[in-house]
């Protein structure tokens, strides 16, 4: 499944990286501890989180993530959104909770590991 297909399926808002949506989703990951994501998120994953600090951009690049999906209607501060756009990191947003959105992603065939 591509990011574009996920955006349509779950009616996600695209905050940054709108020209990168043809990327294939390799896996899913959910965590709010960036130290954990740095160590464990699979490459090409969509990372579901509520953290919006600028460090999220760097962690997404470090792990070559497909996208960061913010839950609970969270948005990025303008300076962070600008950096995300510059670094070509896809940020998506949903009004749903992490539990609800992860459940729907799993239903759509996305799994926790990249195999």
């Amino acid at each position: 499944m591509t990011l574009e297909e996920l955006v349509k399926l779950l009616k996600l808002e695209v905050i940054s990286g709108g020209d990168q949506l043809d990327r294939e989703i390799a896996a899913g990951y959910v965590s709010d501890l960036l130290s954990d994501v740095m160590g464990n998120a699979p490459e090409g994953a969509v990372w579901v989180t509520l953290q919006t600090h600028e460090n999220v951009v760097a962690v997404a690049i470090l792990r070559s993530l497909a996208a960061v999906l913010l839950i609970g209607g969270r948005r990025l501060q303008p300076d962070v959104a600008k950096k995300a756009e510059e670094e070509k990191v896809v940020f998506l947003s949903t009004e749903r909770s992490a539990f609800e959105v992860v459940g729907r992603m799993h239903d759509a065939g996305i799994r926790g590991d990249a195999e």
Partner: protein
Amino acid sequence: MNLSHHSADLHIHSCLSPCGELEMSPLRIAERAKDVGLDLIAICDHNSAENAEAVLEACSKRNLSVIAGMEITTSEEIHIVGLFPDVSAALAVQEVVYENLPGKNDEDVFGIQVVANGDDEVEGFNSRLLIGATALSLQEVIDLIHKKGGLAIAAHIDRASFSLISQLGFIPEGLELDGVEVASTADYGDFVDQGTKQWAVLTSSDAHRLEEIGSKRTTIYAAEPTFNEVGLALRGAEGRRVEIERV
């Protein structure tokens, strides 16, 4: 300028913190700190400074220096220790923290939050959810502390929870910290190597019980054990420095 060594424990909770033992009353903190040979302490309750004045009072009779502080929880759930030039600065910060701190304390779950006076008498109970996180971001908390003339220290950065490293993975570039606190002195060298070199590294007990006071401490090599001198020592000004004590 005569510089000398001052033994400091700059992160001590009182009975106001829900997780702080009731025995952490102003007089007993002062007595214990004096007994274990500390020259300087900072009283840092979770998201509140309501016992700072009482601890100052209790310590003034014992020739022990005290800094009014607060351990503030950011919206990212990072603990930041703010040290302040005086109680009024701490209370000014507390006002903003309270405006951004939702919830009521549940004493059965988190413990009681005792406001005391300098004679160890109970003045009242704080009903706010002091253990909770504020709606203030890391940057907002640091700016708030600095605006009131305080020092911002990232608490126990080597812990797996509520630390700058656990929550954000690494220390953001350009963050205007005045120091970083490590909980374990055994391997703090790793954190120095991970880019904390630009900040002074200190350790403190984070005491919640009397016997923990002074169990971890930092030497302030400075003119006197005061807030201003701690600030200068953290910046390494004119021969001043901070050094982790190996207890």
